[in-house]
């Protein structure tokens, strides 16, 4: 960081370069990206000022989490159906951690994976909830509709990267580059009056979720904000490197790299200074847990929110390895244990910082997996279950849309009324409904929700109701 004057000047120059080039390119290529930017800018009134703090933390489970082994029907009748479909992948009912679901359950009982004691604790104390059988959809889709060649379906079902993109985009389309977290930040970043860092913070590098039309995430690691060695403030080499960033570059690749390098030079020491100014967390995060390391850093950034002048933030963290085609019984317990332990510690940290009601953490994963096995693992499927937590969550409940059986939780039979031959579940709730519920809570107005999530109107409810 040199001076605030030079910082704002550089930001201005970089943004100006971007906008000018974008405008030129837009003449020839005014795609969806350009249209969204316009709609956000022109269609809806700007958000009113706020003085509270709220943040969303997206925990992306890369590879396709087998979430019908995350939450499992544990009453005898339905567990028997589950066990038959899952074969060798089935979990014993007795091994599950029981969920204490409030309200009527029609005699249904549920438990979570044996390694998810933390999630059960969060759920049972009212800080956690599940959203059931959610997936990418363009319209409500029954099994009969799925078989109808004229019924619109999301492109490239069962493909990792396409389904990741669609979950992160907030619409079941494969094109474009932005994500709904980024589009939310485009809309809400003006609430961070006086902030010198982007509203979006990534603990996982580039990701589509946080890519906005104008706001892009700042990437840091679980160790903090990376610093450039041997380029002290005011040194001739730092001035030279800053000059190379700021000079005019004739091609867009170099400009793009220069923007990232410029942002790194700009933000890294300010962020680290803000982190250093907050006391260390007393909450102990589990060791040897990469997700916990990332979430611990998110907690520290949240603790520094006043220094950062942040009133709304969007975080992205991830855990990979969920593509359990083989050795699922070996690998899934560790993955889910990592998730559960990390989330439980993060929840404690939010209490410690005093932001428990202000931070909502939620999982996403590109798809769940086939209910039947390939012998020692499972293959790509479609609808799955997600976990949300935080003080604002109306916990101890399952959320979703009743399927063919009239219940939120689908029948786990192969080739059943809501499933394909191998037990790929047809989602009854759209990922867009899930996302829009979260975005609304963060402060996105109705008008903007319709722009960010254009397919939302095709579903009966824009708000799944799991947040206050």
């Amino acid at each position, binding site marked *: 960081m040199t001076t605030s004057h030079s910082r704002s000047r550089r930001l201005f120059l970089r943004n100006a370069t971007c906008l000018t080039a974008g405008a030129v390119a837009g003449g020839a290529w005014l795609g969806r990206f350009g249209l969204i930017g316009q709609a956000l800018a022109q269609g809806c009134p700007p958000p009113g000022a706020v003085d509270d703090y709220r943040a969303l933390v997206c925990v992306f489970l890369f590879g396709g989490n087998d979430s019908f082994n995350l939450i499992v029907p544990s009453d005898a009748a339905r567990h028997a159906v589950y066990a038959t479909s899952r074969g060798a992948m089935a979990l014993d009912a007795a091994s599950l951690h029981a969920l204490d679901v409030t309200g009527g359950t029609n005699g249904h009982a549920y438990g979570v994976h044996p390694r998810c004691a933390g999630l059960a604790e969060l759920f049972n104390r009212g800080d956690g909830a599940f959203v059931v059988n959610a997936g990418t959809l363009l319209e409500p889709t029954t099994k009969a509709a799925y078989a109808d060649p004229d019924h619109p379906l999301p492109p490239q079902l069962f493909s990792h990267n*396409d389904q990741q993109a669609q979950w992160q985009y907030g619409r079941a389309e494969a094109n474009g580059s932005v994500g709904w977290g980024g589009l939310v930040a485009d809309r809400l970043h003006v609430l961070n009056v006086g902030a010198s860092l982007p509203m979006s913070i990534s603990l996982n590098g580039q990701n589509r979720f946080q890519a906005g039309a104008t706001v892009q995430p700042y990437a840091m690691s679980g160790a903090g904000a990376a610093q450039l060695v041997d380029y002290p403030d005011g040194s*001739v080499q730092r001035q030279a490197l800053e000059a190379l960033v700021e000079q005019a570059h004739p091609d867009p690749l170099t400009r*793009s790299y220069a923007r990232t390098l410029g942002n790194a030079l700009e933000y890294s020491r300010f962020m680290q200074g803000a982190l250093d100014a907050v006391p260390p967390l007393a909450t102990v995060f589990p060791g040897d847990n990469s997700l916990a390391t990332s979430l611990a850093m998110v907690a520290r950034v949240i603790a520094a929110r006043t220094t950062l002048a942040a009133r709304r933030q969007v975080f992205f963290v991830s855990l990979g390895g969920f593509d359990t085609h083989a050795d699922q019984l070996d690998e899934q317990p560790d993955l889910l244990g990592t998730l559960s332990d990390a989330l439980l510690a993060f929840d404690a940290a939010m209490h410690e910082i005093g932001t428990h009601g202000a931070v909502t953490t939620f999982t996403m994963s590109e798809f769940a997996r086939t209910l039947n096995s390939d012998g020692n693992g499972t293959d790509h499927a479609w609808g799955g279950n997600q976990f949300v937590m935080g003080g604002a969550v109306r916990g101890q409940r399952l959320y979703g849309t009743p399927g063919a059986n009239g219940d939120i939780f689908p029948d786990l039979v192969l080739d059943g009324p809501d499933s394909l031959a191998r037990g790929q579940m047809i989602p009854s709730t759209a990922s867009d409904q899930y996302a829009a519920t979260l975005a609304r809570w963060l402060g996105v107005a109705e008008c903007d929700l319709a722009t960010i999530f254009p397919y939302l109107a095709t579903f009966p409810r824009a708000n799944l109701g799991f947040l206050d």
Partner: protein
Amino acid sequence: MTAANTPSRRWSLLFLVCACMPAGAHDLVFRDGFQRVADAPGSDAEAARFLAMATFGPNAADVARLRAVGYRQWIEQQLSLPASLQRPEVEQAVIAAIPNPPGQLARLEIWMRNAVTGPDQLRQRIAWALSQVFVTTYLQSKLNADPGSLAELYDTFTRHAGGWFDADGAFHPGTYESLLGDVTRSPAMAKMLTYLRNRPGDPVLGTSPDENYAREVLQLFSIGLVLRHPDFSPVLDRAGIPIPTYTQAEIGAYARVFTGLSYVGGFNSNPLGANWSPASYQPLTCYAGRHDRASKVLLDYAGADAVPPQHFVLPEDQACETDLAGGLGVIAGHPNVAPFIARQLIQRFTTSNPSPAYVARIAAVFDGDAAGRRGDIGAVVSAILLDDEARQGTAAAPAVFGKAREPLLKLTALYRRYDARAQNGLYGRPNYAAYLQTPQGAPSVFNYYSPDYLPPGELAAAHLVAPELQIVNESSVFSAANDLMTQVRRTIGSANLKPTQVGLDLSPLLPLAGNPAALVARLDADLMYGAMSAPMRATLESLVAALPAGDPMRRVRTSLHVVLASPEFAVQK
């Protein structure tokens, strides 16, 4: 460069060749109709620019050699060199560590040695590119315990880059179909995509064959998700929608094709750990008793360009090797393969956003070289490097041509240009993680980055992809720069350099430290093939002048590092 002025430029280059090259050096010029640029680089800068694409970084010796023999002969010589291999040495490390796995150290040491000093630079660079298409990673599927099979697969890539002679002296051309077969039979890929010991569905147990390889071999290694014209543009249906190349039904059929494969020593053998044997890396066997024997309806090519609708069915009760060869042949024969593979290889060598015509030219080479051989990897890469667009940029959109340098190739370029070496002869745990590019160490089968990555902002608005920028963020620009700083601080001749540390030979730069313009010009020539912009030169000259004249090493190191960290060096054009 427009079409109209190409001939005059061609002749001026040819004149330079005739004037300055030894007799015979240019006799390959215009040997066939495809090659339309003069055959020897007209300057060190042109040679270095080519070598930045074709090697792990230009150095003085290669620049001189390329200028002496011309592009085509250089390529032919390179591809006729024997492949520098990994597995034989990794195997020794594995054997020495039995019953424990030795980790990745030996494999990663040899990778760096071959990248920096391998005489077969082009083969190594092609292997590196292929390893980013047919992706395996030690981070998954227990491959961390099996570096021998990873190394053998890498050697498969290196061999296919130009072909190889077997133990009987017979030559094997490196074709795509041969490569696809060898990849499919490799234990490393079988573990990576979990089809090792894949079994037919069992109606009693309610199981189905594993679909992992079936899906990814189609999506990532061969045809992609949607039908393509030869120039890679999508084939559209009447509603203007891209047409999927396959459905879940074909995935299910291919999952059944890929049943029955296991180690050569028996279906349930496991030649690792205390039982380690060469079977752990040798081609898999297909076990008839474990193979799904029902008929299989494969891809149908429906809707693809210039082929009549074809229906490929593997009849029931075929021998499993016959099923496997037939199934792979149908994949390799799909019209999508040429544009799909051509475009990705172009992206790895020359430009992220090739013109459709460039892709179509390379796809045509893929579909049949001069000898009518389909998918010859060496011929395809040669055409990629020699194409007008590669040599002269994208005529219609000069600012579009180029690619972000792969972060790891910044390190290899530095090492090669300044003859990096350690006294103990090892490279010793290079900090690959700082570049987010550990060889055969991507996070998943989706590689370090996607060929379709659209960086948000200006590039996405212009529909320009930039795969390498997917691993460029505020954290990684600094982690890479910091490792490069570590390298720049270590120089041969320094008293502080430990025998185990890799040092750079910066002695050619030191005499220039007193002359800022000369030093910067040399850095430009060494690392940026003379393409440094005037403003960047001016900035660097001011930097050098502002550093103490009495400390030439500081001037050299500081200015060198600023180049390595700069936006202009980050992009290869």
